[in-house]
């Protein structure tokens, strides 16, 4: 399910079947050109990836709106905020909360998060709309589905 009216109506009727939330994390920062470009590619990729993932597992996951944070922000503050998100969602009750990111800096703080961090190495070569990229994304999605299914069991 996506965060949109039509999907939510289905969600309300079948709440007991939808027990997983995916939150895409996107860093933002425009101080350095190179870093900004990297962050933008990450944003595009993670949007694409999360939508494809949502398509595969529509009936069991809710794709939350993108959580964006400043690249320069203090991680502890962000972690506290992210944990507030997780707590809010777990009350609903969603059993599984996944944070989806390309930003390796979260890996260090994984223990402090009250959700499951899914960190993926970003693919930064090639055009987003190329056939190869489509294939890569599809393969990545396939593996993420496997991973998420492992948590469901």
């Amino acid at each position, binding site marked *: 399910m996506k965060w949109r009216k039509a999907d939510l109506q*289905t969600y309300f009727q*079948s709440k007991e*079947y*939808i027990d997983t939330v995916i939150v895409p994390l996107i860093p933002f920062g425009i101080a350095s050109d190179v870093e900004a470009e990297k962050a933008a590619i990450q944003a595009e990729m993670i949007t694409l990836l999360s939508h494809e993932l949502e*398509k*595969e*597992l*529509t*009936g*069991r996951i809710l794709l939350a709106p993108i959580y964006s944070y400043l690249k320069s922000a203090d991680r502890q503050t962000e972690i506290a905020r992210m944990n507030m998100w997780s707590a809010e969602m777990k009350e609903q009750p969603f059993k599984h909360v996944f944070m989806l990111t390309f930003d390796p800096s979260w890996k260090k703080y994984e223990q402090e998060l009250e959700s499951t961090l899914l960190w993926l190495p970003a693919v930064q070569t090639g055009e987003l709309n190329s056939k190869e990229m489509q294939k890569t994304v*599809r393969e990545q999605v396939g593996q993420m*589905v496997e991973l998420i*299914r492992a948590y469901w069991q």
Partner: protein
Amino acid sequence: MSDEKQQVSRRQFLNYTLTGVGGFMAAGLLISPIRMAIDPVLKGSSAGDLANVGLAVDDITSEPQRIDWTIDQVDGWYESEVNRSAWVYRNENDEIVAFSPVCKHLGCVVSWEGSDQHPNEYYCPCHDGRYYKDGTNVPGTPPLAPLDEYEQEVKDGMLFLGEPKPRGEA
């Protein structure tokens, strides 16, 4: 010699020209109402909506295979390229069957033999939904209807697929 060539008089020349130009203008005036009147005939048939999915008919076996293609879809505000997928195989009667992979329970994507425990079935990873090879839902599992089947056509040895159509209870 030059006398013989002058067979068209000035009056005739004018007549010919005026008839020609007048006829052309009349045709121009008439064409739009006529076009409008027969408009439905000029529209492409619905078969034109079927998309070539890039699969040769000869490559279709009795083992379901997943194919992916894109179509242009206009949906309110958005015109977008939409990815579609299907599971295609040949059944016992040698007919081509193309199923939509969208689970009839809550819309996850099913895969052929997606679970080791359930060989020879379509499997939905979200809530253990299952379907037999012919697309009918396994009773007792979450889905309540068979998988949708695509409209299809074979042209020049290639498979064309249209819209997925729901099938009744089997």
